[in-house]
């Protein structure tokens, strides 16, 4: 039945007088280039795409409903699984909004560590995006180089939090653990090795004729369209929209760092690739500055605020910490939130990653709407692909950085 509806919609599209030359192709939901699960119903004339209708929801798992059932600290394990190519970014976005609602000002050290992690995740996300985009376009080696660097970032996450993938590292008002000197040393050696891998990837792709020919001039998004269709992040910046939440609504300690907002004018897939590559260099710059100036001091805000969980050593070794821990985690206690609502956002790797959080006085949220960047970017897909060839579908999809779990939630 769903297919009927989609086909009817595809056939109602304007300019389809000579339908006998057109055929419908189903793309997905199980296809290597859909990057997990999404489906496209394409109307083709020969190999040219006349019309595309995306069909999503193949990974809708009720995140937002679950958020109404878990408290602000527990829900971090769920937001992790939202954009799983950069899990810690989601955590930082979620707790950024929680702290905005609760009015908590973080400690300087926590802010710096969160900035470092945020930028590491941006590198990780862009690496996956570039690697898989290259893989879809037939360049396998760049994918292997990119994935090895991702493994090193996983090692850093594992060292910091104990979990390789979904770290659940942030807490309301702080972090699960502080980072130690060994971690900083590991991070420094990663930053050093990263530049070599970065040069390898650029060497493989930047002057690769096949790669460039398949990206240049494909999926062009103008500046006006980018604004009108709510594009954010690298995709908007590749079209010349100079928006970056890190600069425009500074959060954490971003004002302390010297970095550039990368943008391009062309708005095609190649511009998006270049913006992502250069953003990784800017992230590298931010991390280098952050570890050079990392403040000392506590990583969590003061426990007397009755909001932040005490660290594990004081939970196990002191009665006050134990009581505080129980007070916060027991279902009939918990911390008190204001009966109010707030929208907050950070610059995630894919774009503006925001939450609209409504609280009702208990430690659970009443409504925790995610603003997923991929959702708005995939909505532009029919516009971007119109008139292109069938083989350009994977190029445009790859350049949009669609993550189905974030798309469907």
């Amino acid at each position, binding site marked *: 039945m769903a297919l009927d509806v989609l086909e009817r919609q595809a056939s109602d599209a304007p300019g389809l007088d000579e339908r006998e030359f057109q055929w419908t192709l189903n793309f997905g939901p199980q296809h290597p280039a859909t990057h997990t699960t999404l489906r496209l119903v394409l109307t083709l004339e020969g190999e040219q795409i006349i019309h595309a209708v995306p069909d999503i929801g193949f990974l*809708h798992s009720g995140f937002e409903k679950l958020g109404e059932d878990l408290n602000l600290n527990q829900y971090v394990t769920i937001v992790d699984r939202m954009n799983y190519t950069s899990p810690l970014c989601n955590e930082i976005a979620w707790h950024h909004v929680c702290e905005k609602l609760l009015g908590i000002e973080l400690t300087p050290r926590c802010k710096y560590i969160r900035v470092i992690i945020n930028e590491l995740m941006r590198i990780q996300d862009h690496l996956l995006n570039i690697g898989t985009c290259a893989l879809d376009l037939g360049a396998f080696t760049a994918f292997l180089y990119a994935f090895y660097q991702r493994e090193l970032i996983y090692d850093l996450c594992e060292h910091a939090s104990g979990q390789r993938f979904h770290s659940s590292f942030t807490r309301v008002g702080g972090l699960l653990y502080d980072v130690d000197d060994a971690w900083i040393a590991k991070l420094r050696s990663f930053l050093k090795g990263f530049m070599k891998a970065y040069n390898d990837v650029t060497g493989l792709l930047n002057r690769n004729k096949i790669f460039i020919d398949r990206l240049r001039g494909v999926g062009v998004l103008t500046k006006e369209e980018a604004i009108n269709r709510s594009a954010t992040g690298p995709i908007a910046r590749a079209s010349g929209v100079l928006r970056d939440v890190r600069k*425009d609504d500074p959060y954490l300690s971003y004002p302390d760092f010297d970095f550039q907002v990368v943008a391009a004018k062309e708005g095609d897939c190649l511009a998006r690739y270049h913006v992502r590559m250069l953003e990784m260099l800017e992230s590298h710059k931010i991390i280098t500055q952050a570890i050079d100036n990392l403040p000392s001091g506590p990583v969590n805000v003061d426990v007397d605020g009755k909001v932040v969980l005490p660290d594990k050593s004081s939970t196990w070794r002191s009665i006050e910490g134990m009581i505080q821990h129980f007070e916060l985690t027991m279902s009939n206690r918990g911390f008190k939130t204001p009966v109010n609502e707030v929208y907050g956002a950070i610059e995630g790797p894919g774009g503006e990653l925001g939450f609209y959080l409504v609280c009702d006085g208990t430690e659970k949220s009443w409504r925790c709407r995610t603003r997923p960047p991929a*959702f708005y970017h995939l909505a532009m897909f029919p516009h971007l692909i119109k008139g292109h060839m069938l083989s350009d579908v994977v190029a445009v999809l790859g350049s949009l950085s669609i993550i189905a779990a974030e798309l469907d939630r």
Partner: protein
Amino acid sequence: MTAQEAINKLKEVSGNGSISTSEFRDNTRVHVSKDILMKVLTCLKNDCGFDFLVDITAIDYMGYPTATTDRFAVVYCLLNTSEGSRIVVKTMVNDPDPVLPSSYSLWKGADWPEREVYDMYGIRFEGHPDLRRILMPQEFTSYPLRKDYPLRGMGERHNFPVLTRAEG
């Protein structure tokens, strides 16, 4: 134009009494009734420079501590891309037939979020070109994010045939 200037402008355009505002942290909210919603959004987009639709979402206030008789709120987060100011427009709709005008004519980005609000809450948007379910299957009958729908569903997730080994 900052949010405060925009509010003054809105009050000029649509009369002082029809708009109420509230603030929390750095969010400025404008509460409007659904009759003047399109007028307010158009004014914000064309005259006040809020040309970027950040998000559309809905909230079900059934049982909320400070709830009034209105059940659903639909929230539009807007952004001024040239100046960076933000504003939140909030409007209430109610049950037997929750319906709002679609803002697709102003922002093409409103296409999918409005479909999602329809899918999750059953709030219809009049004038939307293609209002169908987006995340749930087309055959689904409930609106899952409403507060009276249970978290674990009503058994829909078990309603599938079982394949055993011998059946391949």
